[in-house]
């Protein structure tokens, strides 16, 4: 593990929950009468985000949706340069996405490369009516022409800083929080 020169809390559990609530409200507003709305979380922290948004859609807006997960490893444009190969999680989309509005969920939007890979991966499952993007944190540094449709919080950071989102559902995360870390940029 690299030595972290600095780590500060950006959003605590309460503020993070508010962001997710806001994301759900925006999605509900855009799809008021949707009968086949699908949320697809990008491994790995887009997955708990998708489930949390789905929960809020149901409880706050009486809107039901299906939730799937997508593993973009094999669609990454930098896979050949990985020195450590990740174990594959696999994608799980146990419903028909043809003609459905699909909201991809990812915890941080940075370069846009993961989302590019996720769109490619999703298209191998069918032809959605539309593909939207919900992200908890939108930070600057885009390398692709990709923008979020729904975004919980937007920040500008120096290039050597990264956003680290924690979800209790993820092993070893142990909390809900968003940190800003000054550390060498990782492959993630």
């Amino acid at each position, binding site marked *: 593990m690299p030595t972290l020169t600095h780590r500060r809390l950006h959003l605590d559990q309460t503020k993070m929950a508010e962001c997710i609530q806001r994301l759900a409200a925006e999605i509900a507003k855009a799809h008021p009468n949707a009968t086949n709305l699908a949320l697809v979380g990008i491994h790995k922290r887009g997955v708990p985000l998708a489930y949390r948004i789905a929960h809020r859609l149901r409880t706050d807006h009486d809107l039901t949706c299906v939730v799937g997960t997508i*593993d973009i*490893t*094999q*669609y990454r444009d930098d*896979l*050949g340069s*990985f*020195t*450590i*190969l990740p*174990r*594959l*999680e*696999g*994608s*799980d989309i146990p419903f028909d996405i043809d003609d459905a509005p699909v909201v991809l969920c990812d915890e941080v939007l940075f370069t846009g490369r993961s989302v590019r890979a996720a769109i*490619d991966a999703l298209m*191998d*499952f*069918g032809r959605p009516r539309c593909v939207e993007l919900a992200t908890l944190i939108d930070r600057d540094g885009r390398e692709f022409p990709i923008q979020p449709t729904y975004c919980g919080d937007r920040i500008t950071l120096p290039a050597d800083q990264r956003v680290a989102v924690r979800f209790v559902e993820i092993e070893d995360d142990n909390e809900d929080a968003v940190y800003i870390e000054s550390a060498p940029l990782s492959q993630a």
Partner: protein
Amino acid sequence: MTPRKDLLDIASLSNEEIEFVLANAAPFKDLFRRSVKKVPPLRGRTVLTLFYEPSTRTRSSFEVAASRLSADVTHFDVEFSSVVKGESILDTVETLEAMQLDYIVVRHKQAGIPNLIARNTAASVINAGDGWHAHPTQALLDAFTAREVLEDLRGRRALIVGDIQHSRVARSTSLIFRRLGMEVAYLAPGSLMPRQIPDEITTFGNWQDAFDWKPDIVYLLRVQSERLDEPFFPSATEYHNNFGLTDARLKVLNDRKLWLMHPGPVNRGVEITDAGMNYERSLINQQVENGIAVRMSVLYWLRPGAAPVA
């Protein structure tokens, strides 16, 4: 997991590497149930199958696996190539090297040829069976298949039946089964039982004793037709009666709910009967399907140009 250059045998794999390949095979298998059965990690890469020994299933399995990873797949047809004109293996490798291939899948009747090729090319080399030595992807697919039905293999028992002496499948599969915690026994006529067998492997000369050992899996080996012409056993009928899975022995499997495996292709009427082929707990077709997933997992893991294992 660190990518490695070649897959030449099971013995050189660490436990972590075995687990990595087996774990990734499951998401690859999930792909087969989708309308698009293809993913892009080997896009722009070339996989060559170089088979000096006839094989239809292993070669097709590798070719399907490579195609589903979006690789370009080429077959080097040995029968029609310069090899029959006396070109040496290393001359062939030099030619292949000039084609800038990324992966070479090799089968050869002589043990060690894949290792020789691996040392002389930057491409990743996968051993698809060399002589009596090794068939690592068969072993990996057997382990993956056994785990699908038994989950944890520790303490479980596999009985391998047939021509152990001339079988690279017996060598590689018995090794991976033991590495994953299984107990292994061999059942074979004395003429087809190797002289040197690891101490932890039990040996039997008849089915009754083997059944008393209480195996969970019965793994039949193919009786190679070329052996039938040699004096290892008097006739196919006699082999069938003494060592084949007759319908009476199949009833024991059925009563005890034992799993049946076979690397294929089968010789009906020799090591297995028609009823055996239709046995409810036969995993033979599952082995074929899993072979593609496991070979995809191996191709995903290997990296051309990576440092070879010392």
